């Protein structure tokens, strides 16, 4: 439908307006997402008045925090034309190792546990980065393979057992349940990560190089950017953030299992493509993925509240991803056509 509209404008009165609808839309993507979020909230609120209560909003924000932390890393990976399917497994592995450590040493400072998980994730990410950047394996193959390895290692490390709530010291559980100035720790951590990531991608040389590598690897290489190093860095950041998220996850749900977060990578990818990160590489904004993650978080929270069967959620999520990527593709076409029209004159 959108393509038709864009086409009509493009061929019919294109010379007069000089912009296609989809090109215009690209500028207001965030506003559009926000509008969708508001509409969903209003709709759900009418069906179930307990949706927009302070507690529930806090709950949604805390749930979205982990998703959006991971989306930041995934955005960097997708910008470089890659994909990381291993993060569910990396998350489980780092969470499990952190949980087993605090189980054995209950006196451990929670920050040390966070650091430990971060380090485990960082190591996992470095391995994947090495395989992708130095050995030259396709990201999907490398991460698919390592996903199994990390998941297997999680089972090996735990011996198939769970670390459950009563085996974790309270200080560890308070990482996720505690609050700072009245705001949940998870949200604080997520906001700090957004800020750092925003500064990194917009105001540092390396951050801009990530975009350059994604939009055109050959010219990036020729203009002196060390593309391999950038690729390695991106997967390492992804791993580090996943490790951090692993500890937060285990602390929040107060249980570490072998199959923690299995399939969670799909939600993260969904948040990214919803937020307008182009799967073809080279584009993506922090503000977009935050909104994408919030939209998914609200959907996950709202669907059970309006009595949608949990068995429908898989399907709904898949359709959202597909619709978002198709929509992104159509918008991209509009922009390209728009650029072509400008060139003609």
């Amino acid at each position, binding site marked *: 439908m959108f393509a038709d509209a864009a086409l009509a404008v493009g061929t019919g009165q294109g010379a007069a307006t000089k912009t296609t609808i989809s090109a215009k839309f690209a500028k207001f993507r965030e506003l559009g997402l926000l509008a969708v979020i508001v509409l969903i909230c209003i709709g759900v609120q009418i069906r179930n008045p307990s949706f927009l209560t302070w507690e529930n909003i806090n709950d949604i924000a805390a749930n979205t925090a982990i998703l959006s932390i991971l989306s930041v890393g995934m955005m960097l990976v997708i910008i470089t034309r890659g994909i990381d399917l291993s993060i569910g497994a990396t998350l489980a592995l780092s969470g499990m190792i952190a949980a087993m450590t605090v189980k054995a040493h209950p006196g451990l400072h929670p920050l040390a546990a966070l650091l430990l998980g971060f380090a485990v994730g960082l190591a996992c990410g470095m391995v994947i980065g090495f395989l992708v950047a130095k*050995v030259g394996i396709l990201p999907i193959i490398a991460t*698919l*393979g390592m*996903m199994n390895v990390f998941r297997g290692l999680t089972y090996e490390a735990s011996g198939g057992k769970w670390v459950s709530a009563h085996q974790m010291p309270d200080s560890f559980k308070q990482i996720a349940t505690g609050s700072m100035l009245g705001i949940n720790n998870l949200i604080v951590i997520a906001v700090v990560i957004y800020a750092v990531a925003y500064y990194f991608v917009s105001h540092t040389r390396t951050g801009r190089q990530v975009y350059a590598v994604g939009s055109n690897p050959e010219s990036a290489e020729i203009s002196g950017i060390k593309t391999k190093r950038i690729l390695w860095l991106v997967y390492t950041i992804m791993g580090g953030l996943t490790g951090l998220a692993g500890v937060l996850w285990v602390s929040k749900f107060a249980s570490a299992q072998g199959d923690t977060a299995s399939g969670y990578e*799909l939600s993260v990818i969904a948040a990214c493509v919803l937020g307008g990160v182009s799967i073809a590489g080279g584009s993506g904004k922090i503000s977009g993925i935050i909104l994408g993650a919030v939209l998914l978080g609200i959907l996950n929270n709202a669907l059970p509240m309006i009595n949608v*069967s949990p068995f429908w959620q898989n*399907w709904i999520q*898949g359709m959202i991803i597909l619709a978002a990527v198709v929509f992104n593709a159509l918008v991209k076409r509009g922009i390209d056509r728009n650029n072509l029209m400008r060139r003609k004159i």
Partner: protein
Amino acid sequence: MEPRVLTSKKPLTLKGFFLQWEWMLVLLFIAVIVMNVNLSDYFWDYNNLRDATMSFLDKAFIVLPMVFIIILADIDISVGSIVALSSVIMADLYAHGVPMELALIVCLAVGTLCGYINGLLIVKFKELSSVIVTLSTMIIYRGIAYILLKDQSVGKFPKWFNYLGWGYVGSIPFILIAFAVFAVLFGILLHKTTFGRKVYAIGSNPTASRYSGVQVDRIKIIVFTLAGLMSAVTALFLTSRMGSTRPNIATGYELDVIAMVVLGGISTAGGKGRMIGAILAVFLIGYLRYGLGLINISAQTLLIVIGLLLIFAVSVPKLKWKGTGAKGKAV
């Protein structure tokens, strides 16, 4: 980088012949057999071997079209979900009183349709890689399976249906014969027909192929549709072997299948590889699993082994392997 010759008829020296990736696979295969025989007394037993072969051959049917897909430099990670969806629809129809023969045909039709949808999306939206398209259809197809069956399982199929997975012709398993027939058909399609040559051409250079009059879109759709159809065939055999079906069957099949294809020397850069390599890899991984299972290696450790094997298989050609079968191109 040397020029890529499409009809790779280099003069084949004796050394070149034995340095092919397929010989490496044969050596690995022998190594696995020798290891297994030494590790367990139960391995070298005809009945055991025969039954083991029957248990890992179900997913081998998807390996055949996946070879085509990877030669096209594409990927399909929705195959496991297609298996689940077509199996669930078949079982659900049968449970609602539809005759099994009809349900069986519907199963094949569903798989074919799923594959066709994949192909159509990939061809219509060229901006999207096959990774993201099949990733989303992977969630959607399994999502439909969950909507239909929720968390139940459906079984109690008619007796003759069990024959697919458990039956023998003489003393040879029926599934092995079926696989051999399909393998020969797909092998001929890939290596002896113009269709197969066009698949190689597209994998090597899609733009040049399009300009030389190859109908790239049509061939891609056909190949993805074939993958859907063969996933449905896998669904038949798997459901027959298990005797019942659930929405979460065949989870992770895509990984096993891709691992087998890549281990078989089919380059993920496209345009390279042979059917025989993938078939060798099917048996290699199958017997490796069986042997490790015999000495009580857990399923979790097997995960690690298969993952590492996949990484190993794609790394080795990139480390300047001097074979003709699988020459890796840095991607």
